[in-house]
């Protein structure tokens, strides 16, 4: 090794260099595990380095050059992570793809990225790529990990990782200097990875991130979140998603912690329970599923267990989060919580696999406060963060002592944050992407000349620096007096009440905010039964004064929440009505994924909307409904319109709001 090479290797500005450094420092530390044949098989850093070298030299022997793109497709497998390292060692650029994309989507990305090599998990992925290979003229070679079912494929350009590696080992013996020399050529400013975002509109865009982008951001995150080298994480999110690239690759290598690959996509929950990770990341729906799972199991439990569960859950709700945040708690509660920990919380966390969690994150969309508080009350340090592929994930993250269900935290270390005059959240950080691959127009639209990035999200930056994400910027409107109106934000707040199934708010170009509410039949009918309130049908129940009263409480609760926020205080709900029928996808009022179709509803219920903006306290409707068997009918109803009290007090103490929500 020449001195220049040695010096270049000491600058830890690419991942292959970081790997070499780790091997020097902790050769026997466990780098990665994979559950295979029912057992967690592990590789230590020294072994990983050897595997990566063999793979890199093998790819070099087949002509992989600096700047070549390598598509990587599959579930989280150690060898696919090694393929990323091997590619980067040679100065190539890995392009991970979503493993569930259909062949045509893969063809677009492979062709757009100009990939010369594709490294694929198994026969399923090989078949998909083979079916579109003719339309990927630059693609030269396919490499697969799992040989099952591929024994009789005769394509000359199709090879197994084993074959590549054994060739690589020979190649390394013949060219012993090549590997380190290639690594030493890597620079921090070089392109590290291209991550394609699954754009909701149009074709996916390739986000180019440099080594510096990712390494600096991950270092900051590791330091800020006190990530240690003995963390255990479960790598189960798609490799093509920036979240996984960050947690299972960047942070893992920089901190030197252990990444665990589940046995298969269907065993993730079992593996989670066995492993008990210390660091965990999941979108809100995973946490929702876990709760549903627990609640269903509790329904089946014996009477005494159920009582115990309910009692201690109440205790946790009162004081669990406060104990976690080291805030004062009455001694009796502290004692009860300790008892609950032995009887309920401990076993529950164990069965979820959350016993050892030090930090858990949720991101991606709004999480229901009940769900969020449930996990925190069990003593699990669940936090929210806000990020984007374009930012190398981190934009904001909640500090351990400043966790709220409706904020996403303060700017992460090194991140500058602002809200534009139009209400859009913008940031500038060391993680800001280089640009969209082969798409300078889109880059110019998103990233300003001086490095600020438009997120497309509307948000509010509190005086305390806490960011709150409200809505997609394009959905945000204005009341006539210029107050910001964020329909989804308000609707989500309403929908977090179990009694409210669906909510639609109006306000853009109006004097005040009005709302349609759909009651949740299960929850409200259950309540009505307990109250001894007779009713004949959904329409009848929805029109009951008693039901209006509970919904009015909810609306006013939401108003109090909104009032505590100067930017949104003006968009409190003045008038609301309860719809006489459920909004239904069959009637075109919702999409199949249960998103509200504002336009359809606006047209169909224009009388009702007018009623919200007039003085009358009732309105009669005749609405067309489509029955399950396809017949159509009409429902007549007199709907009441209620006024809701508006809170003028700004800064209602948050504590009160919390307590009344809990009671």
């Amino acid at each position, binding site marked *: 090794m020449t001195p220049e090479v040695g010096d270049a290797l000491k600058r830890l500005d690419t991942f292959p260099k970081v790997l070499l450094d780790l091997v020097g420092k902790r050769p026997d530390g466990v780098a990665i595990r994979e559950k295979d044949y029912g057992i967690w098989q592990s590789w230590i850093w020294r072994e990983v380095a050897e595997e990566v070298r063999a793979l890199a030299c093998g790819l070099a022997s087949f002509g992989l050059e600096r700047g070549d793109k390598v598509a990587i497709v599959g579930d989280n497998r150690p060898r696919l992570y090694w393929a990323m390292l091997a590619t980067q060692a040679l100065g190539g650029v890995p392009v991970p793809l979503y493993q569930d994309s259909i062949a045509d989507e893969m063809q677009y990305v492979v062709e757009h990225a100009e990939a010369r090599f594709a490294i694929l998990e198994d026969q399923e992925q090989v078949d998909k790529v083979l079916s579109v290979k003719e339309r990927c003229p630059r693609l030269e070679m396919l490499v697969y990990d799992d040989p*099952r*079912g591929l*024994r009789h494929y005769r394509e000359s350009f199709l090879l197994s990782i084993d074959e590549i590696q054994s060739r690589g080992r020979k190649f390394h013996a013949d060219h012993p200097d090549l590997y380190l020399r290639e690594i030493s050529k890597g620079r921090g400013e070089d392109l590290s990875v291209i991550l394609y975002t699954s754009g909701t509109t149009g074709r996916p865009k390739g986000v180019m991130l440099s080594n510096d982008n990712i390494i600096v951001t991950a270092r900051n995150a590791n330091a800020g979140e006190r990530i240690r080298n003995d963390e255990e994480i479960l790598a189960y999110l798609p490799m093509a998603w920036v979240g996984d690239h960050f947690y299972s690759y960047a942070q893992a290598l920089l901190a030197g912690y252990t990444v665990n690959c589940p046995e*298969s996509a269907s065993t993730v929950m079992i593996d989670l329970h066995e492993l008990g990770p210390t660091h965990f990341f999941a979108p809100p729906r995973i946490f929702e599923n876990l709760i549903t799972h627990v609640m269903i199991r509790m329904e089946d439990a014996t009477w005494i267990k159920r009582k115990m569960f309910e009692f201690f859950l109440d205790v946790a709700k009162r004081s669990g989060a406060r104990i976690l945040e080291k805030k004062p708690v009455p001694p009796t509660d502290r004692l009860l919580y300790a008892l609950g920990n032995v009887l309920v919380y401990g076993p529950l966390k164990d069965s979820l696999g959350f016993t050892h969690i030090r930090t858990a994150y949720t991101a991606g969309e709004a999480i229901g406060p009940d769900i969020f508080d449930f996990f925190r009350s069990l003593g699990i340090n669940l936090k929210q963060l806000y990020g984007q592929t374009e930012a190398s994930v981190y934009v904001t993250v909640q500090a351990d002592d400043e966790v709220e269900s409706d904020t996403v935290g303060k700017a992460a270390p090194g991140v500058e944050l602002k809200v534009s005059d139009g209400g859009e959240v913008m940031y500038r950080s060391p993680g800001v992407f280089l640009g969209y691959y082969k798409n300078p127009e889109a880059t110019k639209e998103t990233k300003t000349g001086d490095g600020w990035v438009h997120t497309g999200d509307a948000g509010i930056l509190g005086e305390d620096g806490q960011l709150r994400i409200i809505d997609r910027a394009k959905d945000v409107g204005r009341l006539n007096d210029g107050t910001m109106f964020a329909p989804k934000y308000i609707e989500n707040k309403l929908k977090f009440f179990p009694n409210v199934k669906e909510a639609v708010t109006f306000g853009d170009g109006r004097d005040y905010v009005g709302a349609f509410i759909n009651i949740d039949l299960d929850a409200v009918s259950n309540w009505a039964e307990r109250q001894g309130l007779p009713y004949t049908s959904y329409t009848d129940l929805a029109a009951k004064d008693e039901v209006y009263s509970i919904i009015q409480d909810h609306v006013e609760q939401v108003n109090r929440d909104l009032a505590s926020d100067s930017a949104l205080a003006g968009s409190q709900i003045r008038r609301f009505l309860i719809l006489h029928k459920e909004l239904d996808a069959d009637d075109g009022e919702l999409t199949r994924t249960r998103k509200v179709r504002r336009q359809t509803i606006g047209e169909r219920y224009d009388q009702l909307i007018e009623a919200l903006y007039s003085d009358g306290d009732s309105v009669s409707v005749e609405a067309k409904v489509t029955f399950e068997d396809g017949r159509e009918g009409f429902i007549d109803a007199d709907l009441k319109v209620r006024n809701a009290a508006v809170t003028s007090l700004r800064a209602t103490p948050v504590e009160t709001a919390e307590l009344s929500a809990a009671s």
Partner: protein
Amino acid sequence: MTNGKSIGDTLLRVDDVSVSFGAVAALTDVSFEIREREILAIIGPNGAGKTTMLNVLNGVYQPDHGTMTFNDRTYTRMRPSEAAEHGIARTFQNVALFRGMTTLDNIFTGRTLKMKSNLFMQAIYWGPAQKVEREHRQAVERIIDFLEIEEIRKVPVGRLPYGLQKRVELGRALAAEPKLLLLDEPMAGMNLEEKEDMCRFILDVNEEFGTTIALIEHDMGVVMDISDRVVVLDYGRKIADGHPDVVRQDSAVIDAYLGVAHDAA
């Protein structure tokens, strides 16, 4: 089907086998052969004698006359335990698993014949028994991995949906590392997706392990897709034998399936 697979010599030959139950002749002078590494389908209308044939092959029924030659040894009668020892494993038309036991344990039972260490050693789990147990677990895990049933490893099979039970049963048969695998209606009662899965597993078993497979199946699409050769039985007699495309065109087969007017005279 022809992608590189080499079908070998005769693994099992059936010569003039007849079985009758009282006055009912279930099989009459049936002869055919099963070649190494092939997938052979035995088809025929209801009551044609398919299951009887399979029962003869693994020794449940003794033929009235006729012989079977397996691995160059000729038998006139073979007990089920002998058949198992010689490497013939099977699954059943109605799933026959230990419903209270887990998937893992059910597949383990398929290894019984391979377990040589003595009961006492096994009971105290000591010495060579430990090593042997580990080897068997490894073999079972390879099957679990192969059949993609990791997530139900520890679930009692009684709680599994039917399609998965069938897969576990296949796993148990595979655990014996058979030379010849007999499948009695592996796809009966399955939905389309389960059928496709099962087809893939059967093809994979054949391809990856080189296991010879004889199967009974009613779904003609499946039979024509996956088998190398088809034997057709009707009223206990063999009426056709050959490549699926040939058998499909055979007039006797068409008659047997669609029915012809039997002369009542």
